[in-house]
């Protein structure tokens, strides 16, 4: 079965969202990702990428349109219920509980699982992230930036979500750590988890993604396979344009 035959895992229809009612940031986005795909959401600063995924996660009010997980409409499902539908979200910053231990962070997430499965799932995650397994009682606030990202991802995976959304996991990390985080994400994707990745780090993200969509001013402007987008002049224009303009003006 090729990717395009697989059922849609997550989709939005004419999604309009934003913190203020009269000031929508996401202005009508149709988006779909198939099961097992890894799609990166690109776009210049302020394009509404973050707002788009937060609206799906239930953290930003949706004004109109719908978000669906498989066939289920999850638009008005409260944020804390979305995880029960199989949608996990990893925010960009402050995505771990710094005052709780590593183990407590995972236990908290495992709480929605049946009792008998909790320990088994946490053990499985420790198997995947040996760094975390080494010091389960360490306060998460003492972890390095990369380890925090890993803990945030591990915590999201505890409940075996069908779709994992990450908001700029590379933010503030060194290139070496970014490479580690991204190869982990690729490995998770290869186990069958559908991943939506919001990124500023275009090159690294396109290297692991199947497909990319580009948001500009709250609208989905362009999409295509990651491999071809990497050399697409539109991508270059959107990202480098801002930098080229002052230069041109100065010449």
């Amino acid at each position: 079965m090729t990717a395009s035959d697989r059922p849609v895992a997550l989709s939005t229809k004419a999604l309009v969202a934003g913190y203020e009612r009269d000031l929508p940031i996401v202005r009508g986005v149709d988006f779909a990702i198939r099961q097992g795909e890894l799609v990166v959401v690109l776009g210049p600063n302020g394009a509404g990428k973050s707002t788009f995924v937060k609206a799906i996660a239930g953290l930003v009010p949706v004004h109109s349109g719908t978000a669906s997980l498989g066939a289920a409409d999850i638009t008005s499902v409260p944020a804390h219920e979305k995880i029960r539908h199989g949608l996990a979200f990893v925010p960009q910053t402050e995505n771990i509980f710094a005052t709780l231990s590593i183990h407590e962070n995972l236990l908290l997430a495992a709480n929605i699982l049946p009792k008998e499965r909790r320990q088994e799932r946490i053990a499985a995650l420790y198997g995947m992230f040996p760094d975390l397994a080494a010091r389960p009682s360490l306060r998460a606030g003492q972890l390095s930036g990369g380890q925090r990202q890993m803990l945030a991802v591990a915590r999201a995976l505890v409940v075996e979500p069908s779709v994992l959304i990450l908001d700029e996991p590379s933010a503030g990390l060194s290139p070496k750590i970014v490479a580690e985080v991204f190869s982990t994400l690729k490995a998770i994707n290869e186990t069958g988890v559908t991943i939506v990745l919001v990124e500023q780090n275009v090159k690294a993200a396109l290297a692991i993604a199947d497909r990319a969509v580009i948001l500009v001013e709250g609208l989905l402007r362009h999409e295509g396979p990651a491999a071809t987008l990497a050399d697409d002049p539109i991508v270059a224009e959107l990202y480098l344009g801002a930098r080229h303009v002052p230069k041109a003006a100065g010449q």
Partner: protein
Amino acid sequence: MNPQALMDGLVTGSMIGLGAIGVTLTYSILRFANFAHGEFLAWGAYIALAVSGALGWLAPSLLAPIGPFSFGWSLPIAAIAAIALTGGLALLVDALLFGRLRAQRSTVIIMVMASFGAALTLRSLLEFIFTAKPAYYTKALQIALPLGGGLRATPDQLLSLGLAAILVVTLHVLLTRTTIGRSMRAVSENQQLAGVVGVDVRKVIRTVWLLGAGLAAVAGIMAGLLVQVRPYMGLDLLLPLFAAAILGGIGSVPGAMLAGLIVGLTEAFAVQFVGAEWRAAIAFVILVAVLLFRPQGIFGRPE
């Protein structure tokens, strides 16, 4: 120096500590200083008074003192009812007032002002229903027992101290070892992330109100038992409660209890060394000193 100040301070301090735990919990999870918290103490005391009185009227044998204590079974039974009903009162105030303001994303100052309004309303209602005249759970007089070293304490006082200790340890275990405790700590650190992880924040908020108001009711009943029941008892304890919550470090249950004891002891010793008229100023001095020199409190983490 009269060592009796030590016992007086510990007894007052444990009441302040129990009240301060409620303040610190609401502050860390709902993110505002609830100036109506003192009223939960007073309401707890009055509900216990009413229930205990009703029980005594229905079954006078319940009024016969238990062992060395000054009260009969009517009071412990009434205390359980008061804990539950004060918790219910806190949930009601939240549903009518604070919950609505949260839904409108009101700023902290609006919440604080609303809590002043709630405090006035709750206090006036008590005065209206029960009048301003002080009341007592029991008319029995207790002889203080010598404990050695010049210390004396009544059985009621010793019971209060023991009960406060048990409650603090239980609450500490609840917060550190149970799922709801972990959820509470998670919400206190980052409410939005807690939601993303699957924590039902509304349930956590309800739990905080029930725990805070329940402990306030216990503190109010202790104050009523050891001193007297008055509509203004909550208001009078408000400053010590906040001094203790801030000295202990916002969010820290052991901190609030320890700080409550410190405030209580300081007050008791101040009465001896400086004069009883300065008692009320002590909490204020502690509050200002902590805010100036160690705003994160004893156990708090710097912001």
